[in-house]
């Protein structure tokens, strides 16, 4: 048992760390109604890696990471900056279009790179069981930096997320764009960092499920934040424990646990005071 605990300690630490940062971002994502943004970002990052490979950078080198980040940041900045123009297509639709065009280009490029289709499926699976302590440590440092930025801008970010579609904000367009840029770039960095480790579905569920569960019952930011952390932490730890005792893969186990919890809560909410 102790050996197992030791073996599982790094994945558990990673899960708790990821749940911490992703559940926080989830509240913003849900309030803005851009649910699938992380899947689009992950796809763009994978495309960036493939473009880097085509440009001749070595696999898993520093320069290819830079290429991937750079490409992602360009796309996400464009997304952030076009937001405050009057739109006839909703943001979620633009996210969908970015995702499927990104994937289509990746599929075309995959033909040109040996083993190219690996880069497409790699983003889907991920495996948190093999995370190392050094990776966890790097993530911790990175997330602390991002948390500091978000702590500093917390009031502005909450306001912008609450009024995502309205133009009732007291900020000038320039400042608004600056805040948006900071928000989306930090979010992009988190997604690009977490998806290769945990896989797209675990990241997605840690992002969306805890905040959805609590947002069914309240729209107070403080309560949502605290409860989504509690739900995210408990879900990860219990999920890993269940996956260990039933011998199933842990990512999918956490996904099912948190996801089913949301649906149960939604039906409780429906039946309440019916």
């Amino acid at each position, binding site marked *: 048992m102790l050996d197992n605990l030791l073996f599982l300690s790094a994945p558990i630490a990673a899960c708790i760390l990821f749940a911490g940062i992703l559940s926080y971002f989830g509240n913003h994502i849900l309030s803005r109604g851009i649910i699938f943004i992380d899947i689009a970002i992950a796809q763009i990052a994978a495309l960036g890696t493939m473009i880097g490979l085509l440009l001749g950078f070595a696999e898993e080198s520093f320069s290819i990471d830079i290429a991937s980040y750079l490409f992602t940041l360009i796309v996400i900045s464009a997304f952030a900056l076009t937001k405050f123009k009057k739109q006839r297509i*909703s943001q979620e639709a633009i996210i969908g279009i970015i995702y499927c065009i990104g994937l*289509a280009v990746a*599929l075309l490029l995959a033909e040109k790179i040996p083993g190219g289709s690996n880069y497409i499926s790699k983003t889907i699976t991920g495996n948190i069981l093999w995370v190392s302590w050094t990776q966890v440590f790097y993530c911790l440092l990175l997330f602390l930096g991002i948390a500091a930025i978000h702590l500093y801008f917390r009031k502005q970010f909450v306001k912008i997320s609450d009024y995502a579609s309205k133009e009732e904000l007291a900020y000038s367009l320039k400042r608004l764009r600056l805040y948006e840029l900071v928000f989306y770039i930090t979010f992009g960095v988190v997604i690009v960092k977490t998806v290769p480790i945990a896989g797209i579905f675990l990241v997605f*569920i840690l992002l969306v499920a805890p905040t959805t569960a609590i947002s069914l019952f309240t729209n107070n930011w403080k309560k949502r934040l605290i409860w989504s952390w509690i739900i995210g932490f408990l879900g990860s730890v219990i999920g890993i424990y269940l996956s260990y005792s039933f011998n199933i893969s842990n990512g999918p186990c956490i996904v*099912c646990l948190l996801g089913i919890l949301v649906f149960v809560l939604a039906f409780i*909410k*429906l039946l309440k005071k019916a």
Partner: protein
Amino acid sequence: MEILEFMLIPFIACLLLIGSNVYFGIHVLKREIIFIDIALAQIAALGGAIAMVIQQTMEGSNAHEHSEDSFFSYAFSLLFCTIAAILFSLLKNKKIKIPLEALIGIAYAVATAAAVIILDKGAGGDVHIHDMLIGSILWVGWDQVLKLAITVGIIGLFHVIFRKRFFALSDYYLTNDIKYKNKSLWDFLFYFSFGILIVQAVQVGGILTVFAFLIIPASISSLLASRWYSRILIGLGIGGIITFLGLYFSWELDVPCSPVIILFLGIVLLISLVITRLKRN
């Protein structure tokens, strides 16, 4: 004339896919439930996976043949689609204040994770993912196209007869003030018919192609028009032309056709964005 022989079936298949998806795409955009088709496709796939496991345990381990087309797994896919349709129409309720898209996303993630647990990462998973994404529209046979055509025909007829109800439902979906009674029932019928179509469409075109056909032509048409009929016509026209060009170029350049069609659709979307911007100035 080799190209005609080779490309005729894929072209008809693409036209059927575009035709039905443009219509549903406008609904989906209005409701802001962009990823519903991926979720429905994945939920149906989960049904198919469960059917496969049940069959294998009943028949013993010697039943290794691919029974994807079997009636049993199709019935299970439909059953799961029905459950999903009931879920989504019930959860669209004034009491639930969060966007339905969040619940759709969670359903998608759970369906995928459950399929992974059930199939326990079977061998050749990567290839399967690749096929599931882009399908193999070049290799569809007449029987598949016929099945798709019948499905599109029946569902199309149903939606033509009750078009006013479905239009009204989606037009007032986000504001929640619909005059019709039995709103949930019609909502259920919408998701259910859409689910049946998606199950057939994904088998022919793959998830990515179907998704692109669903939202890109509908987005283009929303830039250029706002009435239902003109939007459907614009979507159909652009979709048809792009499919033709895409298939032709993929033949000439010897690249997979679905990504090429999607890229072309993306380019047309960009052009229409520029046009609308210029018009406004």
